[in-house]
């Protein structure tokens, strides 16, 4: 009888060890997906994807700047759900097949760091510069607030399938503007 008891305890200990989350899980962010209306609302951001394009060339509206490359351009409509204090997309990243890309800082206009408004949308663009051979794969677009590493906080997640994204010859990167898309 004591042997059965001992074996039972060992089994319980093994199960507890197996299902215990890793230490890092204590600080993991909470992914938030889009609702039926396409808007994903986290603690500090409310965002919807307006358009996604792939292109070999991005330019600005005054055509004074352009860059060739393997670009993924995302147009978003974003607002702040409750407060405008510190409301902005601080980190925008694209996770494709285990590789994480940050939104490019090269284009003169970007939605990253733009002050967001409560109740009024801001429409802006994010450009991701990808390796030339990255043409397909599934992943996700992640948006979070001002802190560089979101811990124990919401992160907005939109699924992205590179193979489904239409390709344009060139995409114009506009300054973020106020108003509905």
């Amino acid at each position, binding site marked *: 009888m004591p042997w059965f008891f001992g074996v039972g305890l060992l089994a319980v200990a093994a199960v507890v060890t197996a299902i215990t989350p890793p230490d890092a899980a204590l600080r993991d962010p909470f992914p938030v997906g889009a609702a039926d209306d396409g808007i994903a609302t986290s603690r500090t951001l409310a965002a919807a994807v307006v358009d996604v394009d792939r292109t070999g060339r991005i330019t600005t509206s005054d055509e004074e700047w352009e860059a060739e490359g393997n670009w993924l351009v995302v147009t978003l409509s974003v607002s702040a759900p*409750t407060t405008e204090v510190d409301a902005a997309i601080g980190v925008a990243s694209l996770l494709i097949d285990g590789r994480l890309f940050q939104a490019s800082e090269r284009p003169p206009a970007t939605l990253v760091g733009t002050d967001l408004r409560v*109740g009024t949308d801001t429409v802006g663009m994010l450009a991701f510069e990808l390796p030339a051979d990255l043409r397909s794969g599934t992943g996700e677009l992640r948006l979070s607030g001002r802190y560089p590493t979101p811990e124990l906080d919401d992160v907005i997640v939109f699924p992205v399938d590179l193979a489904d994204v239409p390709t344009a010859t060139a995409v114009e990167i506009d300054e973020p503007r106020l108003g509905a898309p």
Partner: protein
Amino acid sequence: MTSWWHRQRVALIALLVAVVAVVGVHVWFDVLPASTDDTAVIEARNGSAEIAGQSLALDSARWDEFDAPAGSRTLSIRIESGGGPDATTCGLFTLAEAGGARVWSNARSVLDVPFDAGESFCQEESGPYVILAVFLLPDDAEGPFVLEIPGDGEVARFPVEL
């Protein structure tokens, strides 16, 4: 035969005292300091309050003075300051819904507001001057609002009735 509880009474009392001490130390040193908010709130009287070394008076609140995108409108709030020798700068103006959770901040930089229409925040000014704060509100925000102006570890609250 004495009961187990009776025989272990010294140890049990010691355990109880230890639990109270641990909880007390944690609450006193960790919980209470984190929750203390020492910002003093100054409620405006008759639309005026002393903050950042100067006297601020709510002059007017006006809808739709500046262009806004569809579905939104602007609310311009003018504040008269008396200035003074002790006048310092103040923090970010915010406008909160009195009956809701939404908070807006000064949106002058994204709206077409002439730079000479008034100062954007408190100045170190000895004489009187005018501050203009412009908020971009969605159409469903109708007020009443509370305007908050932080300065010098204090915050002045002005009720804005429309």
